[in-house]
């Protein structure tokens, strides 16, 4: 296994990366061994070399770990041996031309598609997400925002958040049947509505919202879910300039506390939020690094940035 370039950042003095997003200033390559990863049971198997993370920000807690993922549809390899390691609290943009495998990657992490080989882990190695159902993965703390805004159109904005709200004791049928909203839940929803700026729309049916508002509501629902890892698929597609700026602000607010993966086509948006960028091409990782480096990478320019 070749050692890909490492973009390590300054080691932080605290182990608690939550709230401290990896710094954007890359320093010289350091050894890529991840032996210090604070992940339960992560000790490299003796027979194999330890996994070389492409861009683990620093030896610190891992937020999301995708390991040698391969997916093929009728012989076509949508993903080919993709390994991706994100530090806890990292904001990562994934770019790539159409058909590069970005959405398939999201599908694998959220359990919609089962990969042929490979594994996906959250903060610990306790659960291999590829063996779980969508709901179990969601309950473990993976939230996903779809490419097209997906909200519950017949429910009000408030009810949408209520359905997404993280609940103690799980989402079993009978628990849900007798569930009552408590004060903490109501306050949390108010807080979320405040963040996404839809407070005065709480009783509006979500189906009646403008496109941009739907996008925000969906992000708000993810906030209410309080996931550990957030996957956001093309958040600014079809948005106006001010809406886009507001969204960039929202997304940046999300990172730090959570590990965030953003798939986006809009390069301007990526530039405005990106710290670390991964470029996918034909199911493989073409390049990985800070935005500035990616933009000057000749191979990336060739296949993607083009002009």
């Amino acid at each position, binding site marked *: 296994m070749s050692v890909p370039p490492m973009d390590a950042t300054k080691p932080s003095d605290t182990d608690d990366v939550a709230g401290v997003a990896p710094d954007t200033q890359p320093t010289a390559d350091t050894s890529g061994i991840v032996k210090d990863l604070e992940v339960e049971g992560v000790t490299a198997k003796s027979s194999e070399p330890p996994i070389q993370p492409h861009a683990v920000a620093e030896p610190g807690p891992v937020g999301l770990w995708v390991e040698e993922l391969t997916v093929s549809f009728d012989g076509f390899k949508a993903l080919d041996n993709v390994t991706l390691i994100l530090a806890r609290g990292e904001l990562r943009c994934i770019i790539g031309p159409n058909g590069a495998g970005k959405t398939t990657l999201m599908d694998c992490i*959220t359990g*919609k598609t089962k990969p042929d080989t490979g594994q996906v882990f959250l903060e610990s190695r306790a659960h291999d997400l590829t063996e779980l*159902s*969508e*709901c179990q993965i*969601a*309950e473990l703390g993976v*939230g*996903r925002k*779809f490419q097209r805004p*997906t*909200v*519950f*159109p*017949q*429910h009000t904005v408030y*009810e949408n958040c*209520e*359905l*997404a709200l993280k609940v103690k004791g799980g*989402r*079993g*049928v009978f628990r*849900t*049947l*007798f*569930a*009552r*909203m408590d004060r903490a839940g109501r306050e949390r929803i108010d807080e979320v509505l405040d963040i996404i700026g839809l407070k005065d729309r709480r009783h509006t049916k979500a189906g009646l919202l403008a496109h941009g508002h739907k996008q925000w509501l969906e992000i708000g*629902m993810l906030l209410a*879910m309080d996931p550990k890892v957030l996957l956001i698929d093309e958040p600014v597609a079809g948005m106006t300039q001010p809406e886009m700026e507001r969204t960039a602000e929202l997304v940046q607010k999300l990172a730090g506390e959570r590990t965030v993966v953003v798939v986006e086509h809009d390069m301007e948006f990526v530039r405005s939020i990106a710290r670390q960028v991964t470029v996918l091409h034909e199911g493989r990782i073409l390049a990985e690094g800070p935005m500035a480096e990616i933009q000057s990478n000749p191979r990336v320019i060739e296949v993607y940035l083009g002009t």
Partner: protein
Amino acid sequence: MRARERLLQFHDKKGWLFFGVATLITTVLIPLLNGMPKSFPLAVPDYMMPLIGKFLCFGMAAIAMDLIWGYTGILSLGHGLFFALGGYAMGMYLMRSMAGEGVYRSSLPDFMVFLDWKTLPWYWHGFEHFWFAAAMVLVVPGLLAFVFGWFAFRSRIKGVYLSIVTQALTYAAMLLFFQNATGFGGNNGLTDFKRLLGHSLQDPATKKALYVTSAIALSGTYLLARFVVTSKLGRVLTAVRDAELKTRFCGYESTRYKTFVWTLSAMLCAVAGALYVPQVGIINPSEMQPSNSIELAIWAAVGGRGTLLGPLLGALFLNGAKSFLTAAFPSAWLYVLGGIFVGVTLFLPQGFLGLADVWRRRRARAAAAADKKAAGP
């Protein structure tokens, strides 16, 4: 206080008032009118009681249908099967409770004597007890619905495919029940019932009691359904209807939710069927005809899906019309039914109850316009 709050989520005060009045009319007023002397203009004759009782049973089935179709978006074209199974469980009790009084004076039901059977099949045991039969009314359809639902929903069968599978299910059951060897009386089904819990079914008092039981059961079904749809679970169900994948990504096992409401709906249908059989005096495989299940769906569509009240009113209205028209113009009924269905589908996609919404919105708009005028110079 919390209970009160929850009850007000079922309905606002006005809604509860309507519910109370409707319940009083069906459970108290109509039986009272039935007791009036024949000379009284509004007297309800004895023969009407089982007829209205039958409509109320159909209303229960329509509410059950609305839970699964209107709220969860699963169009079942096989709910007649659950209705019939509940009916059969009741019919088996009625047959067993008259052992020795049949035409052949045998301890076996008449049709078994006719088929020259010497002993009771194993699955008929226990039905001589009312409590056992009552339990089976819930258990058999509930279990069938649970197993069917679990596998169908787990395999992600949905939409028109699921409708077709449910249709096939009821059709297959009908063919099975048509067989004499199945042991449920073949195409004649179970009939010639004598008594229920010791009371003669010919007695007007029994008929009245059955009617009142149906009316109470209908109100209970309505409240139960209301409880379900106003709960958080109800909101999850409509979410599953509108964006199932999203609910899964929110952490709800949609398969379990669908199986739950499917089974509940089947059991409610079965109770309706069990109350229906002693009032009409017969249960046979024709109740499992695909067309019966389709009619059930039409009641819900005409009344207005996703409102509970709409399908209930749809069932009462269409069955009332059917009773009247099949007597007055026997050949016209199917054309009328088809015409209503097409008309509603084209012009009232929300059903008749959707009209109320349109009217309310129009009034609100008119009020807003009037306000503007008043506020203007």
